[in-house]
């Protein structure tokens, strides 16, 4: 008979909540990449300086999102990670709005 093992503070959560949250950030980043590529493709056929500017804007949105996700993934490495900082949540929202406004401007 083995002794009953009591959980300690540093133990991993058996439900793998931080891991699942990390993967949720990963797949959201992936979705963001696809959308940014579509956004870049939108201006591909026009060419010229404005197209280059628009394509770099789409790339910038993706890079900002990638950075936000990476930072959060590092935070989630702790045994008991804290609440998502509201600044990060708002930055994600700003990225989405930038993509949508960009899309509306180009489609129009």
């Amino acid at each position: 008979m083995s002794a009953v093992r009591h959980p300690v503070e540093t133990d991993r959560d058996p439900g793998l909540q931080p891991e699942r949250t990390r993967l949720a950030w990963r797949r959201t980043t992936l979705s963001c990449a696809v959308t940014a590529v579509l956004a870049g493709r939108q201006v591909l056929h026009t060419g010229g300086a404005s197209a280059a500017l628009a394509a770099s804007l789409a790339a910038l949105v993706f890079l900002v999102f990638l950075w936000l996700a990476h930072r959060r993934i590092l935070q989630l490495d702790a045994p008991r990670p804290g609440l998502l900082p509201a600044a990060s949540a708002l930055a994600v929202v700003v990225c989405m709005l930038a993509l949508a406004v960009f899309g509306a401007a180009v489609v129009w």
Partner: protein
Amino acid sequence: MSVFDQLGAGRDAVRLWFTPSRVQGEGETPDYRFSLANERTFLAWIRTALALIGGGFAVDQFLTDHLTHWARVTLALALLAGGVACTLRAVNHWVRCERAMRRGADLPVSRFPAVLALLVAVIAVAMVAVVLVGWAG
């Protein structure tokens, strides 16, 4: 609930987005796993928003043979607007759930999923009609 109460609640909600420390000031900190689940729900809504925005781009880029210019623009703008609505709803719902968990209150309910489902269904039916008309003609 009167219109003014609703407006006041809306103003409070927007204020909470920008001063989330107010959320942490009240009630008790919930189990971190519940907060992480709330965060994943937020991310799922963000992916929904991304899909709608990407769909808007796709409509404009890939339906050039099927739709007139204005039908394409309208459909793309509707999808982009849906994406914006999803994004704002995501952050609003996240803050409200976090606050409800701290207070030990019921989680907020909303009709947003139903409205979104109807919008997507309408767009899907419109697309089927477009394809059938294009196939017949």
